[in-house]
């Protein structure tokens, strides 16, 4: 693994069995994550974007081993206890003890701030629970740490004895963020952290995540379906479709010069909050196919406006067409696709 990388995922797969009949026979598989390769550098934000059912949440949870991967390697540069040395471990192969250790380095923020906080626990015990689980500090030390964390996310120590229902959606999301920060992790997987919030509150949380990244040197895997949010927060972006990454590159390149037809269509479909903004809208036909029985060849070919006969026969490789710009398409170089640069504001 290259020295600047924190996480290096290759060939990650997660298939869920589909069972039927009295004997619950396995009749097929939902290919939720189907051969994903990606890496995250230390201190950067990788945005993972896609429509519902594309496998972005499953990918995030598989990296944390909240879901067991079917196949693949997930290398992570973990911090050694005590001496501060680092070593590379394969998350997919980690045993129980090692996994618990790894969990101190990787945390998650969930989408729904209403269902991800236990309503019967106070804020202090929610935020302090990771410390208890990992046996860190004495009671009063933990208490101080909780205060510190609440201040970091913009709450006060007066909030410690309250219960989740006493908070608004934005405040609850901050509690979730404080909990994720409790163990001083390196990697935070943020799974749609702002999509349940109103726009004015969304901006508050996004700014806070930005500040915390600088303050604690965090690395984010930021999962979202909203392209404007992804563009705002990410350094590099991966676009997912039917369990595969179809394009991955730096945020500027992806938005100005997309190389995959799905990326182009996705960007053109987003309504822009400017009435003078004229776009050549590409409306994709039909729905996303079922991941139980994905199309042959390139998964996107039935909806692709540029598809050629061999797209239905041969699956394209996930290849690097220019420096750190990866595309999953046979014809990436031949297509003239429009990015945001081609969308002119009058």
């Amino acid at each position, binding site marked *: 693994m290259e020295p600047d990388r924190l996480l290096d995922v290759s060939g990650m797969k997660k298939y869920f069995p589909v069972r039927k009949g009295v004997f619950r026979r396995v009749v097929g598989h939902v290919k939720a994550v189907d051969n994903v390769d990606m890496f995250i550098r230390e201190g950067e934000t990788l945005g993972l974007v896609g429509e519902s059912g594309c496998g972005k949440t499953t990918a995030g949870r598989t990296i944390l081993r909240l879901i067991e991967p079917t196949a693949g390697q997930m290398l992570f540069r973990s911090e050694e206890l005590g001496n501060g040395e680092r070593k590379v471990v394969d998350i997919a192969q980690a045993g129980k003890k090692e996994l618990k250790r790894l969990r101190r380095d990787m945390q998650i923020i969930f989408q729904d701030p209403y269902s991800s906080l236990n309503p019967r626990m106070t804020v202090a015990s929610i935020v302090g629970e990771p410390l208890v689980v990992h046996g860190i500090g004495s009671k009063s030390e933990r208490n101080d740490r909780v205060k510190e964390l609440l201040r970091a996310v913009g709450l006060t120590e007066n909030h410690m004895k309250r219960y989740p229902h006493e908070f608004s959606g934005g405040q609850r999301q901050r509690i979730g963020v404080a909990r994720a920060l409790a163990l001083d992790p390196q990697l935070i997987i943020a799974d749609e952290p702002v999509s349940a919030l109103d726009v004015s509150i969304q901006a508050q949380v996004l700014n806070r995540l930005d500040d915390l990244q600088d303050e604690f040197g965090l690395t984010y895997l930021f999962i979202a379906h909203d392209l404007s949010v992804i563009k705002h927060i990410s350094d590099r972006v991966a676009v997912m479709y039917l369990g595969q990454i179809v394009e991955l590159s730096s945020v500027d390149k992806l938005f100005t010069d997309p190389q995959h037809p799905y990326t182009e269509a*996705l960007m053109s479909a987003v309504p822009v909050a*400017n009435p003078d*903004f004229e776009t050549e809208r590409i409306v994709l036909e039909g729905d996303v196919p079922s991941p139980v029985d994905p199309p042959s060849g390139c998964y996107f070919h039935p909806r692709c406006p540029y598809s050629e006969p061999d797209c239905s026969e041969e699956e394209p490789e996930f290849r690097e067409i220019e420096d750190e710009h990866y595309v999953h398409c046979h014809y990436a170089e031949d297509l003239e696709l429009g990015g*945001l640069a081609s969308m002119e504001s009058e």
Partner: protein
Amino acid sequence: MPLIELNDLKTYFYTEDGVVKAVDGVSFDIDKQQTLGVVGESGCGKSVTALSIMGLVPMPPGRIEGGEILYHRNGESLDLASLDPKGKKMRSIRGNEIAMIFQEPMTSLNPVFTIGNQIMEAITLHQDVGKKEAKTLAIQMLEEVGIPLPAQRVDEYPHQLSGGMRQRAMIAMALSCNPTMLIADEPTTALDVTIQAQILELMGDLQDEFDTSIMFITHDLGVIAEITSYVVVMYLGKIVESGEVHEIYHNPTMPYTQGLMESIPSLDVDKGRLEPIKGVVPDPYDVPDGCPFNNRCPHVMDICKKEDPPLEEVVEGHKSSCWLHIDH
């Protein structure tokens, strides 16, 4: 003459915890064939405004406390607010002349009836046609909204359709009686962007074809910019700003509208750091005195805490409710 005229509409809810003034003095017009956008964050009263027009406010606890909803048709003017919501007249208008589509297509379709059945119900209720003819009409409508194999789909149940297809079926049902006005309450919020693009395109095409007025409710400023011509911004049950969509987007005058525009990340410009509106929307039981936005407003003055500003024209065709722009 506008098609619908709201004059100082007030819809309150009397709950155990107090009175919620969900809609508190709202006035606007919807012209024939116009697409009016209503935008605001959750709890601003945009949905209750729609339910009031449809006569679907749950009573109790809700009550239309004052104001009128004038509906002008064929030379007569009806006040929908004073009609009995369960009465014959209202029932002949609702779903027939004024139809509505909802946010969540799965919960607003009945899971135990086929979609054909549900569209036929709307047709036979309002039109004098037999069952067979109604089914033909239903198939026609499904074809109109772009559902493939309509003759087959008509006998399917909602769970057999995808989210986008369900919303198309809802639109087919709403348009089956050729309404003069369609209220769309966040019709694309639950959908993915590529499917949202399909539905928005469809609604635009159908509007041209059927000459329907549309009241489009959403929290998404992008969608509003995309499809509406006139926009109303709501905050805590009141209209805080209204005008032509270009005017409002390029020249917002009310600090709340400005704040909304500043706080969204945008695809077309790089914003650097976002400028969120500080604080949160106050509890609806406990709306501040004076201007409802005063406790979050960066330009707050003394008068803002005492008196509620009226909605007045700042530029021609552009109204704003803010003391910054009104002499006092």
